[in-house]
Structure formats: structure tokens, C-alpha cells
């Protein structure tokens, strides 16, 4: 039987299956792949009424403008600093929490704690930021109330640039650390119990068991997640940062995503903001590919 005939028979036999895939395929073509084609406007002076075919080409002008702009170094360093802060202050927290949860001997107690610390993950960023606002405001917020009752001056957490980064990190930890334990707990569950028995024979106490058995046993998972985190270096959460952004903290809070929103949607510079987004997406793609390569090299299965 020829290849075409075989193909026709496959199409006929599976016609309903192809029909099922079709809507999903149409969806990603329209809402994912056409926007990728739309990246062409970053090389144009795009005019909405003229469309891509009618707008003038300007080459790399928008990219040059971006790299020569003082804004570029501001958003670049802001992005990098937030990423490094996440790596230092957020990344270890789920690991420590998972180790602690693993040591709990009562199943009911363990489950109760887990249920509670997973909850914040399901709150929207708007809710998380709003809770912070009502607690931190100078106008009747609980935190400033406490500070005042201890005899100190009220602090303007919400409008001072130096508080933006701590606030961002604390919110990330509060919302995600509990949920982040899941993957580590799964890895810990796979550790051979005999190892602990042996360690006990050798007289190792619980802390030493944690340090010498549990932690090394999940080292691979930790390294893989660390590497994958590098792939997400530019994904700091548009919604989260945008909600915290205001006129007073812009110099520390503006990142690529918020910059694209402000220059593109609010100021209508479609081509320039697309160029900024393109640069971010391109670097992000390279980082993900690099991270995945690194993960494979490390000896584990890659993710994609």
C-alpha cells in the first residue's frame, strides 16, 4: 500500500480524533502563533490602521533605543536583583519546610500543617497584595499599630522604595513556600527507611539524620529545581510586581513585564514595547534551553 493511501485510511479511521484536536490547534495558532508572527512589528513603526504589511520597516531601531535607554539598565538590574533575592531568601524555604514536615511523627498533625501552608498559594496576587496593604498602611494598619505601641515611629512601608524588595520577597515566600514543599516531600518519601535504621545504630541523632541522610537523598531534586529556576530568571510575575508598582518605587520595582505594559498599553508605543517583550522572551528562551541542557548534563532527565 502506498504512503498516501495509508494516510487516507488513517484519516478516515480517525476522523473524529482529528476533529477533536482541531479546535485546540486552531486556538494555539490564533492566540499563540499569530502573536509570535506579530513580533515582526518590533522591526517596524507599526501603525494599527496600516497593519503589519503596510507599516514601515525600521530594522533594529527599537532595540537600539532600548539598549541605549537608561531605563534598560534600571529594569535589567531590578530584574536581576529580584531574581537573586528569590534565590537566596525564597528557594531554601520549601526545602527546610519539607525537612521539618518529614520529621513530624503524627500524621494528623502533619496533614493539618500541610493544609494550612498550602492555602495561600490559591489566593490571587490581588488578594495577597491587598492583605499586605491593609496590614501595612499608616492609616490604621496592624503592623504600624504594633510599631507605635512599642514606642517607635510609624513607617511608610507602601510608599518607600527601600521596602519594595523585602515586601516582594516576603509575599512570594508567604504565598508559595508551603506549596513548594510538595515536590520535596515526594522526593523524601522515596528515601529508603533502612538508611535511618542504620544511622540510628551508629548513634546519629535526628538532626544528624536530617543532615546526613534526608538532605543528600533529595540533593538531585534540589539541583534540578535550582537549575530550572535559572530558566525562569525573567519570570518574576507581572501581576505581582505591577500591583506593588507606584510612582515612588518605580526605580526599584520596574521590571521587563511592567515596562512593556506601561510603554505599550498605557503609552501606545506598540513597536517599542514589543521589542522589549521580544528581547525578554528571547533571553528567557535561551535561559530555559540552557537550564535544560544543564539539567540533562547533570544526569537527570530533561524536562522538555
Amino acid at each position, binding site marked *: 500500500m502506498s504512503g498516501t493511501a495509508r494516510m487516507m485510511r488513517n484519516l478516515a479511521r480517525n476522523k*473524529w480524533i482529528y476533529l477533536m484536536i482541531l479546535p485546540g490547534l486552531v486556538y494555539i495558532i490564533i492566540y499563540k502563533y499569530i*502573536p509570535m508572527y506579530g*513580533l515582526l512589528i518590533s522591526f517596524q513603526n507599526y501603525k494599527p490602521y496600516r497593519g503589519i504589511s503596510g507599516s514601515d520597516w525600521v530594522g533594529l531601531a527599537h532595540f537600539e533605543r532600548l539598549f541605549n535607554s537608561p531605563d534598560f539598565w534600571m529594569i535589567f538590574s531590578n530584574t536581576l536583583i529580584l531574581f537573586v533575592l528569590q534565590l537566596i531568601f525564597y528557594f531554601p524555604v520549601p526545602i527546610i519546610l519539607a525537612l*521539618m514536615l518529614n520529621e513530624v511523627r503524627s500524621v494528623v498533625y502533619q496533614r493539618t500543617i500541610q493544609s494550612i501552608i498550602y492555602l495561600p498559594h490559591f*489566593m490571587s496576587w490581588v488578594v495577597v497584595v491587598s*492583605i499586605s496593604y491593609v496590614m501595612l498602611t499608616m492609616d490604621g494598619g496592624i503592623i504600624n499599630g*504594633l510599631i507605635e505601641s512599642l514606642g517607635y515611629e510609624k513607617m511608610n512601608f507602601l510608599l518607600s522604595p527601600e521596602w519594595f524588595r523585602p515586601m516582594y520577597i516576603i509575599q512570594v515566600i508567604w504565598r508559595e513556600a508551603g506549596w513548594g514543599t510538595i515536590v520535596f516531600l515526594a522526593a523524601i518519601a522515596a528515601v529508603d527507611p533502612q538508611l535511618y535504621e542504620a544511622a540510628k545504630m551508629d548513634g546519629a541523632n535526628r538532626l544528624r539524620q536530617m543532615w546526613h541522610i534526608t538532605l543528600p537523598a533529595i540533593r538531585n531534586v534540589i539541583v534540578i529545581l535550582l537549575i530550572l529556576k535559572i530558566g525562569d530568571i525573567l519570570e518574576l510575575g507581572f501581576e505581582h510586581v505591577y500591583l506593588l508598582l507606584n510612582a515612588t518605587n518605580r526605580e526599584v520595582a520596574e521590571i521587563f513585564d511592567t515596562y512593556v505594559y506601561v510603554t505599550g498599553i498605557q503609552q501606545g508605543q506598540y513597536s517599542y514595547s514589543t521589542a522589549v517583550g521580544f528581547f525578554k522572551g528571547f533571553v528567557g528562551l535561551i535561559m530555559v534551553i540552557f537550564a535544560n541542557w544543564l539539567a540533562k548534563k547533570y544526569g537527570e532527565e530533561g524536562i522538555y
Partner: protein
Amino acid sequence: MIYDKSLGSRIFNLINGTLLAIIALLCLLPFVHVIGSSLATNAEIAARKFMLVPTEFTFDAYRYIFSTNNITRSLLISVVVTLGGTLWSMFFSVMTAYGLSRKDILGRRFILFLFVFTMLFNGGMIPTFIVVQKTGLMNTLWALIIPGTINVFNMIILRTFFQNLPDGLEESAKIDGANDFGILFRIVIPCSMPVIATISLFYAVTYWNTYMNAILYLNDASQWPVQVWLRQIVVLASGLNYDGSIYNDTPPPAQSVKMATIVVASLPIILVYPFLQKHFTKGALLGSIKA
């Protein structure tokens, strides 16, 4: 495993358990504070700084926000978008996932790659915005749903599950003369209820929490879902009397109104959470292991 009952081990348990309790409290206390303050009277909020449970309960703040139309309407919009969006997304995600789980489909690997690639790279905010505009979704509630029709991550979890169903299931139905749609809706889906429930919940949470698409695609405040109003009321505070309505002579302090708005914007999730927690974690684990 036999647990070691030495004194050192007991002290360790005590410290560890206490620390975890403190951490859990840190997760919980902000909610308690917000819910408590939303139910407190004006006088008590002003007098007490550390508010957890008010001594005198009042629903004034809730009466106020539900008298302003904005919140009532936006809650209704959020409910409609959440229910409609979840159904819509599940319908297309399940069909795509099932189709791609079948082995003898031409170009299956390529189509799958097309989906996975969108997780690594995309056109970004502005080109997507232009497409949403050109496809006529601007200022319609469809703009909150259609651009997020299929979450590739969720679709792949579904696909992995369908792939692991026993083959015999479909064979027997085929012999009975059912077509593929019949097999999917009458056999495969009923056999996959755990994963269907998990993914539906993931979608529902996403739709309830939707914020970015709303600020991008909806200019008219009368279409805003509750998250956008929450931001308006708490973060920008000025949105409070957007429609000019006034609640009797002495409106409650803004603080308790803000608290009450946070509560209504998060309550649906807090209420269903205890029942769904098991599913959520199962799904997350499936997701972390991945295809």
C-alpha cells in the same frame, strides 16, 4: 520504622512541632485578622490595634459593599466567568488531550511540540493584545476566557492520564459500534473523574483570580471581575464611591470595607478549599513529574 523515644528525640519533636505551628499561624493569621476586622465595629477598629476576633460583631461593612452595586455586579461577573470559563476550558482541553493521547495519529509528536513550545516562548503581551483586539474580544467577557482556552500544562496532565488508561476500555466500546466522541464522553471521561476534578479546579481558581486579562482587555468598569475591584478599593482606595452611592449617614471606615472586600474576593476559594485540598496536591505532583 521503630521510632526512637530518647529524650533528645522528644525535645526535637517538641521544637520542630512548635516551629511548624508558628509557621502555620503565620499563614493563617492574616486571614483571621482580615475576616475579624471586616466584622468589627468602627469604634473597635479605631481602639484596638491587634484585631483578630472582634468583641462586637457587625455586618455593616458587608451591607455597605453590597449596597454599592459595583461589588455585587463584579462578583456576579466573576462567578459567570469562573463557571463558564472552566466548562469552556475543560471541553477543549479534554478533547485535545484525548486526541493527542491516541497513538496512531499522524503528526502527533509535531502537534504536541507546537503546544509545548508555547510554554517556552510566546509573542508576549503586545502582539497578543493586538490579536485579541483584531478577533473582536475587546470589552467582552470572552476576553477573560478565550485567550486562556487551553493551559498547556493542564492539557498535558490530562493527556498523561488518558494515555495510562487500559487499552481494552476503548476496544470493547469500539466493538459495540461507538464512535470516538461516544468513547470519550461515555467511557473515558467517567473513568477519569479524579483528574477531571483536579484540572477543573485548577482552571476554576485561575478564572476566579483573573486580573491581568481584565486590566488589559476591559476598559469599562461595569465589566470588571471582583479582583479588579478589589485592587481598585484597597490599593487605589479612591474607587470606593465609584458609582457615587452612599451608605446611610455614617459610612463605616474604609479599613473595614477594604477588609470585607478582600474577604468576598477570596471567600469562594477558602470555602471550597478544605474539600478540594487532596485533589490539588495530587494534581501538583502529577504536574511536577510531568509527561
